[in-house]
């Protein structure tokens, strides 16, 4: 990673992500004070539909639009276009590195 790329990521982290850390809804895990009888999250939405397999991610504009649509009304609202705007700087990134042997990488 070049110094310029690193600076861009640090800037994005501080401007866009760090301020979100204080917002309760950023993290979906609700810390229960007492053990619950069950931790299953019910997700019964019926059989899968064709739309469940469709995402518009064919180019930068479509990706930004899809992300912003998904995040509309939530704590990440508007972040899609700003995140994707970083992508031209990383166009030459190669995914050569193995995943870490020391931690289950969130990425």
């Amino acid at each position, binding site marked *: 990673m070049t110094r310029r790329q690193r600076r861009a990521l640090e800037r994005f982290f501080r401007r866009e992500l760090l301020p979100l850390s204080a917002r309760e809804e950023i*993290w979906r895990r609700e810390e229960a004070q007492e053990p619950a009888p069950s*931790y299953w999250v019910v997700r*019964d939405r019926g059989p*899968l539909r064709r739309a469940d*397999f*469709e995402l518009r991610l064919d180019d930068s504009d479509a990706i930004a639009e899809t992300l912003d649509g998904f995040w509309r009304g939530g704590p990440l609202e508007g972040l899609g276009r700003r995140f994707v705007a970083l992508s031209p700087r990383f166009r030459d990134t190669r995914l050569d590195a193995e995943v870490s042997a020391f931690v*289950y990488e969130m990425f």
Partner: protein
Amino acid sequence: MNARPCWVVGISAFYHDAAAAILRDGEIVAAAQEERFSRRKHDPRFPANALNYCLEEAQIEADELAAVVFYESPVLMLDRILRAVAGAGEKGIGPWLDGAPGWLGVKLFFERSVRQELGADVPVLYSEHHVSHAASAFYPSPYDEAAILTIDGVGEWATTTLATGDAEGIRVLDEIRFPDSLGLLYSAFTQYCGFKVNSGEYKLMGLAPYGKPIYADRIREHVIDLRPDGSFRLDMSYFGYLDSLSMTSERFHRLFGGPPRTPESRISRREMDLAASIQAVLEDAVLRIARHLRQRTGMRHLCMAGGVALNCVATGRLLREGIFDGIWVQPAAGDAGGALGAACAVSHQYFGLPRTPAPPGRDRQHGSYLGPAFSNAEVRAFLDVRDYPYEEVSDEERAQRVASTLAEGKIVGYLVGRSEFGPRSLGARSILGDPRDPATQAVMNLKIKFRESFRPFAPSILRERCSDWFELDADSPYMLVVAPVRESRRIPFERGESDDMLAIVNRPRSSVPAITHVDYSARIQTVDAAVKPDFHAVLRAFEEKTGVPLVVNTSFNVRGEPIVCSPEDAYTCFMRTDMDVLVLENCILRKEEQPKFEEDRDWQQEYELD
């Protein structure tokens, strides 16, 4: 006139074990992991080689594809990642700087990669990670309807999913979400015991029978809140994977008596007991989930996938408990299998194709022999051009020769037919040995595989003889079920309190010591003549010569190397190790007849230890 076939390609990539699979009208045609071609273990890159192989095997051009489907949703994945990074506050900067470039340069632009590789404008679809796992478990299974359980580290948000599958498709019911994860819990103990995350989990499972589960109560009391219905919650103060570069936290280390074991250092009693303890907790959780799922769905059969489904000790216990009438586990249960599952989900649920009936008594996975094969002409061409001495024999003669060689206590590398899809070698890319010899386990571990001496080997046995030797009278074609060796075959054995694992390993435990683990268990492959006739013939010939219908079967590779794919890979591995004989289709090569094998580099530096 026939309607145009519906070709669907599934792809998994960008995390680990990239793979491609291709289906014709919902029927599996081919599937392969990229690592088998690139020779890079767990290769995460876009699987260009595997994709090309799939198109070649299908004999189609890219523009004939109805769709390419990615095995997870980048949108949901990014949602989880950005929330986790933001939620970690200042500590999120490290993971962010490590991971963001990959997303911004590669992962968000999957469609660009597809267009570049295929040179065609093919529709691209996406299947959620656990839907892909669920589809990989249900659609190739022999069942018309089944409950489905997927458990892994994490997909997008889900880490454990309950679902059903029937003629109407897959229906997701309930899930447990990140960061609560049985896969990550097991990986945390894997790392703490000095093994690598994502590959060392198998070692931890193999280590468990050497220990006692003395920490199990401590894990249940402090680390995981496991409810009667199998749902669970982790106390994240014991873990580091949300905001550090370690799976475990200082609090975890204090709870279990010190810092993590240094990789490759001596394994102590503590690691053995920790392995036994987390294995006990995992089995407990899996059994509770299975009971809940049976009650929730009322279905008689269970299909499983996700990395945790590869824990064949837990699966074997689940089978023996009889919670379900039948269990089918996707042999490529990890992320590679997600490619297959994504293609299945889209074929059946997006394009609405009906499932083809399974052959009577069998599944739709074709023995998982879904990778490349090499003809005798191709093998001869490879050997002739290099002047490597060999003898070409008939199928029958090959089986006899292999059996005789094994009966002499020698080790055979065996490459016959299409290669396996999934992490287990099933007699297409295998190293074979004599299970009767007490020294086989140590010799194969230390001189052939160059891996830890404690690691057990698995038997391949004639299906029709399985219950004579093991407490299992069911198909286990994919080596995914662990069952005890029959009492009548056992030799009284005291494990003792010793920490000297080599001494324990070398003590015979049965009349087939090389495949009998210290707790008398074995990870069994049953071999059916209708599915893998050449390998069945080897086992039958070995039985005729020795009275024993099973052989040692381990993957054809050395530690850290992907399983061999081509005759060249196999020859190289053969010459680098102490194998005695190599079988390449109908060509047999003897080590003593081969020219000196010279390499201009130290091959042991080539592969990073797993």
